[in-house]
């Protein structure tokens, strides 16, 4: 029977049997859906990537105002297009570590202040020029200049000097930073000829594909780069179509006009998954929907009030009702398993008794005002209403005030003491904490001021011992969980879908969209 199952799985993997039929036959033979699916994916991988064909992606987020200049990329479409034609020095590996791209290897000095990246030899751009260390230096300079508009400027600030040294590039930092390779994996930092100073939007790079046509906010076509140095790129042609409307995107997938879509609306994802030729993939991510309190404003300056609110939220209910199950519960820290060097902390549960206890201890009396709006995150007003209900069972009265969408980010967020908001993930703990939880950060939207936390953040940045660093980040998350102004009930998943025409989708690196942006070059079209 087992041999028969394996035969069926290989047939299904080769496309001779639909996934639905395969699962039906598997069930008849007494296999559970889980084990049958596992068998199927194993068989698919055993069949291996197939070359050729056209892979078509329908993606949300592109706009006619976009640019091909990697410095100006702000959305998923831009990320996916950039990944086709360009490459960074290093890249996140599937295990959460770092792997070389244009840099073959790298090493740090003992104090983590000087980093040397050795370039891969013999790599050429799509215009035939060789990649030189000077190009890398110029690229870094373009992204860190005074007047740059680069989205990577924030992460370039700590770099004092970049210089070429033979076929290596040396980075000198202001202060020790063990995370530099993670920062250089940022998708804006595509290495371009002469740093892209001549024509930043020329789309000339070292990637697995060469752009054939680019109509901003509409459609992009790329063909395989015959001289690509690596093993990426299975399909001959990649076509990316911008489909911003949710229903239209799902319909395009269902009617077979595209093979892959992103951002399946959570409300309908389960219905979409029921279609026989479609598979919905859910990838856990680092983005989170939050309620933020100012730790320096009454009544939230009292940690017991903050704890009362943290115990008074029903996290699982939020994941079930606001994210329709496509997410994971939060633990009042911005860090989850998507981050490298993650340690799981004890999960805080909904506990009305403890909430009541902390509120009594704080001595606070009366209601608490929460401000919310639809664009703080999808479903924020509903989430606020759920919070209101769960708090009322703990005897705490929450007043919810609906604010207009227009001006929410300038008038309410980072201005009023208690409101709903969201955060996208960052590649490392250091980035996340430095952006929003360091006492001097511009975006310290919880007004969190903890000397010990600040000191640990700087110390961890220069710590090259991974075990010690991991412990430091666990301690910092614990401080945030028990003293911070962040109530983080949920992390939202990336929900993406593929048809049976293509294969090779793996969840890949947690926290990254569409296989870390490599879906187009790592997936393949079934023959």
């Amino acid at each position, binding site marked *: 029977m087992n041999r028969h199952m394996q035969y069926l799985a290989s047939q299904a993997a080769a496309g001779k049997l639909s996934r639905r039929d395969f699962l039906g036959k598997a069930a008849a033979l007494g296999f559970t859906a889980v084990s049958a699916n596992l068998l199927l994916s194993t068989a698919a991988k055993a069949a291996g990537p197939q070359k050729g064909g056209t892979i078509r992606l*329908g993606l949300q987020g592109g*706009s*006619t*105002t*976009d*640019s091909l200049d990697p410095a100006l990329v702000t959305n998923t479409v831009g990320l996916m297009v950039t990944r086709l034609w360009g490459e960074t020095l290093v890249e996140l590996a599937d295990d959460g570590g770092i792997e070389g791209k244009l840099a073959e290897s790298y090493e740090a000095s003992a104090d983590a202040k000087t980093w040397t990246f050795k370039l891969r030899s013999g790599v050429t751009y799509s215009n035939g020029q060789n990649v030189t260390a000077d190009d890398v230096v110029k690229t870094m300079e373009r992204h860190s200049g005074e*007047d740059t*508009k680069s989205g990577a*400027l*924030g992460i370039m600030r700590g770099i004092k000097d970049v210089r070429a040294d033979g076929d290596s590039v040396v980075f000198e930092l202001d202060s020790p930073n063990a995370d530099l390779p993670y920062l250089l994996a940022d998708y804006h930092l595509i290495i371009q000829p002469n740093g892209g100073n001549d024509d930043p939007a020329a789309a000339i790079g070292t990637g697995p594909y060469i752009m054939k*046509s680019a*109509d*901003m*906010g*509409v*459609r992009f076509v790329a063909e395989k780069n015959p001289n690509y140095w690596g093993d990426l790129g299975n399909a001959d042609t990649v076509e990316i*179509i*911008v*489909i*911003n*409307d949710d*229903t*239209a995107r799902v*319909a*395009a997938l*269902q*009617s*077979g*006009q*595209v093979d892959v879509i992103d951002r399946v609306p959570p409300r309908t994802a389960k219905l979409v998954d029921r279609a026989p030729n479609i598979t919905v993939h859910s990838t856990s991510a680092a983005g989170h929907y939050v309620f933020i309190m100012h730790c320096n404003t009454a009544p939230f300056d009292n940690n017991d009030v903050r704890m009362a609110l943290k115990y008074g939220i029903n996290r699982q209910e939020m994941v079930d009702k606001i994210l329709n199950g496509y997410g994971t519960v939060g633990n009042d820290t911005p860090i989850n398993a998507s981050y490298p060097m993650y340690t799981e902390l004890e999960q805080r549960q909904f506990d009305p008794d403890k909430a009541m206890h902390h509120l009594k201890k704080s001595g606070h009396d009366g209601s608490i005002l929460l401000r919310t709006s639809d664009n703080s995150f999808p479903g924020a007003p509903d989430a606020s209403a759920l919070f209101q209900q769960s708090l009322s069972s703990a005897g705490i009265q929450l007043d919810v005030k609906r604010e207009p969408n227009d001006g929410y*980010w300038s008038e309410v967020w980072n201005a009023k003491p208690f409101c709903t908001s969201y955060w996208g993930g960052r590649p490392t703990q250091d980035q996340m904490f430095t952006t929003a939880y360091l006492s001097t950060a511009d975006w310290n939207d919880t007004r969190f001021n903890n000397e010990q936390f600040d000191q640990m953040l700087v110390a961890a940045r220069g710590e090259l011992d991974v075990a010690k660093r991991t412990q430091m980040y666990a301690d910092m998350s614990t401080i945030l969980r028990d003293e911070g102004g962040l109530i983080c009930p949920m992390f939202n998943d990336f929900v993406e879908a593929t048809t049976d025409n293509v294969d090779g989708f793996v969840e890949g690196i947690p926290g990254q969209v569409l296989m870390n942006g490599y879906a187009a070059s790592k997936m393949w079209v079934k023959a």
Partner: protein
Amino acid sequence: MSPIVKLLAQRIALSLLLLLLISVVIFAGTIVLPGDVAQSILGQSATPEALANLRAELGVNDPPVQRYFAWLFGAMQGDLGTALTSGQDIAQALSSRFWNTLFLAFWAAVVAVPLAIFLGLLAVRFKDRWPDKMISAVTLASISIPEFLIGYVLMYFIAVKLRWFPSVAMVNDSMGLFDKLNAIALPIAVLTLVVLAHMMRMTRAAILNVMQSAYIETAELKGLNAFQVIYRHAFPNAIAPIVNVVMLNLAYLVVGVVVIEVVFVYPGMGQYLVDHVSKRDVPVVQACGLIFAAVYIGLNMIADIVAILSNPRLRHPK
């Protein structure tokens, strides 16, 4: 100069004057729009120095009147300026979008206008009997349903279930005419359903109005059959109001299809305009506004001229 040429010249001059006035309104409107262009380009990372630099670069510090005339003279010479967000030449970027919009509007009109007029005539021929009632009911129902909903319904049944036509109406230069028509079949169907009722009802009403005239009775008495009466005597006299409503709907097909373009992912002007409005890219918004206004005024002018030419009383004023 014959009076008819004079009349036409007057019409055209009036239209141009109207367009000029509208250009003032568009320019003034985009100036009072809330939000600062420099702020929205730089986003959250804006520093006061960068904002000041960018404002000077964009020329938003000059007096509005000076900016208006500079813009107007540029526009008259076909120079619509450059987009703030991408730095592209607007006229160039707009032209392909505009042709796409016209392409869709043209084929929707090719289907919708004859169909509407034919259905209108049919409704008159069978006035108050079941074909008339059914035509009215169906077209009124289709105009009452929001167009995006019709779009979704057609998409679900025709594209997803039956797979006759694609749900994504993506056209590009490398496609042949047949491929393009195949791609835009669904948007054409939706647009037809949306504009049909208005034109059909107007045709019906205009002809019925004429049908009460004495000369129609004469025509009937001399033995013409019903269709001939409508076609030879009623229709020519009802042509002015029909052309009017047809032109209004054609204008709608060009300037009002933003929702359809979004739903069917059609690369026309609507989506282009919406993207730039949200980024406060004022030169593009002004250019689109001007073009839309020109289309609207132009089509209405044509309707006026046709009305004049088809009406002896207007053709030979006292």
